[in-house]
């Protein structure tokens, strides 16, 4: 997956300086701050970070799904085919959603409308974007169900969602998302709510479909194992910011940001009896961010200068890291 055809070339989608705010008792708080990264054609990007780091919000923001009145996008651009998606209104975004960019969500149990059959919903999406007749759309829907691995699709297409298991529902969601062959698929923790065995199947399915359709995938997850298996490049987020961007092959053995290294070190080892290495401390609350580097208070390698100014994301070749000591530190990684 990571090493076959050359991936890349121009960026398919470019996120520039994205900032998202939500309203709370303390006023508008920024939960995503200055996030920038590219997604290139046919590549798989992993967007990783712990719960609450803003990765899901970033994914939702790309498709303009941040819901007023409680949230708003305060800054930034998302460029697709030369157009800034954030500048478009609902009406203009709709032809793009599901057609050029599609999204699969975390909760398969609740992401399908329980009041309509599975088939009706896939057909609805198909006919929304493509000029198909009802019977054409239905045939295509059956075909899609088959491609995502639902057995006996001719019968299942008329089932209501409650008759399907979690894994099957996730497959149906993938079928809906890919029905119009989008250029980019955003998958927000697609396997988190599934059993471990089913997780592997769904990931394989996604990889296979990606190859077939030649699309890019933005995979949002907190699971390093998934990233290692499936991604070409990784964007690491912490407290609403990007702290490291790197290719997968370089990130794991030689991380450049202390947070990445700490995450890797905290992965449970396979030897029984080994003690766990959790990262000490907690993610800072949005209304009480520490001065200087936000990861500082928890960092093993923190020095005085870290607290004086907020570090910028600095590139070095194809990699970037938001740490003033990135070039000096030789951080331990895992495997290769």
């Amino acid at each position, binding site marked *: 997956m990571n090493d076959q055809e050359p991936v890349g070339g121009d960026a398919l989608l470019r996120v520039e300086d994205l900032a998202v705010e939500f309203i709370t008792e303390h006023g508008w708080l920024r939960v995503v701050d200055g996030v920038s990264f590219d997604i290139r054609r046919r590549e798989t990007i992993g967007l990783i970070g712990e719960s609450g780091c803003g990765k899901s919000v970033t994914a939702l923001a790309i498709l303009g799904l941040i819901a007023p009145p409680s949230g708003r996008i305060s800054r930034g651009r998302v460029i697709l085919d030369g157009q800034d998606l954030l500048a478009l209104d609902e009406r203009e975004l*709709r032809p793009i959603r599901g057609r050029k960019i599609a*999204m699969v*969500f975390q909760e398969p149990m609740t*992401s*399908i*409308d329980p009041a309509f059959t599975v088939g009706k919903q896939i057909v609805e999406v198909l006919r*929304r974007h493509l000029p198909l007749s009802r019977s054409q759309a239905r045939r295509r829907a059956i075909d899609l169900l088959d491609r995502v691995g639902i057995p006996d699709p001719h019968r299942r297409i008329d089932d209501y969602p409650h008759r399907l298991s979690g894994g099957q529902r996730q497959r149906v969601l993938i079928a809906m998302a890919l029905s119009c062959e989008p250029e980019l698929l955003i998958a927000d923790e697609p396997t988190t709510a599934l059993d471990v065995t089913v997780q592997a199947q769904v990931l394989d399915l996604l990889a296979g479909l990606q190859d077939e359709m030649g699309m890019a995938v933005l995979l949002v997850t907190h699971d390093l194992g998934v990233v290692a298996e499936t991604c070409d490049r990784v964007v690491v987020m912490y407290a609403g910011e990007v702290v490291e961007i790197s290719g997968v092959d370089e990130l794991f053995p030689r991380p450049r940001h202390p947070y990445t290294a700490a995450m890797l070190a905290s992965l449970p080892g396979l030897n029984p009896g080994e003690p766990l290495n959790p990262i000490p401390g907690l993610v800072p609350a949005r209304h009480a961010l520490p001065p200087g580097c936000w990861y500082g208070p928890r960092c093993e390698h923190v020095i005085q200068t870290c607290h004086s100014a907020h570090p910028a994301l600095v590139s070095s070749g194809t990699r970037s890291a938001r740490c003033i000591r990135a070039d000096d530190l030789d951080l331990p990684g895992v495997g290769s």
Partner: protein
Amino acid sequence: MLRLVARRLLRVIPLLLLVTLIAFGLLNLVPGDPAVQIAGEFATAEQIEAVRTDLGLDQPWLARYGSWLGSAVQGDLGESLFSGVPVRTQIWDRLPATVSLIGWALMLSALIGIPAGTVAGWREGSAIDRFLTVGTTIGVAIPVFVSALVLALLVGLKLGWLPATGYVGITESPWEWARRLILPSIALAFTGAAEIARQTRAGVIEVKKQDFVRAARANGLTTWQVLGKHTLKNAMIPVVTVVGLQIGRLFGLSVLVEQIFNIPGLGSRLITAVFENDIPFIQGTVLMLGTVIILVNAAIDISYGYFNPRVRES
């Protein structure tokens, strides 16, 4: 689906039985000796005895209930105490007026309430929403006789646009029938529209947060598809419940409205029956209305199977 229908209808039976007991039991609430009460202050002993046999009060409880129930099931609800006119005939004569009134009121409530609630819920927090919330809070508190009187006063008497009293059957003149029912229907519809709007709004707000609504938006579906199809269909169950509840409420409130607007329906007849102590009529009305509402509620429960397919199997 058929199993759902059968199961729901089965539950209707004990309810119907209880309603018959309540209707019948009313007679037993009469303080003291019912025969004396009904015969009046100046009755002689023979008149009291006559009333007693008339009402069958000399027989044991269960026998009386049985024979009353037996006749009721065949449609015979006894006769009015003093006039001797069969209760069934009176109810039948008066029903069209009341049903017309309630029908109009219900339709108005739903036609105003559901769209208003949907818009308010979809655009939660907007000016329209806040305006509607205030409006419904007030609307729910307006007593029906106040709104009826105000409407009769302003539109009927002062402005003279619409007649403030009377009723004309639909077969006589559809135009007059409708015209005379407008004001009383509006009076009845206030509270209903407010409650329906509230419930619809709450339902839409609840459903629009659901993951599948977000997923539908993410797939690029239009507002109509997301709102009209997916959101509404899922939000409909509590709304249908409220609409169904209105029917029972409206039967009750129509009593007051019929009195104010001089409509010869069931309600106004019931009021005179209460003044006259016309117990058979009261019992007959209670029984009939209870039965109708139990069946309506059963129908609504069955409709849940349409809106929420999971219900069909549980």
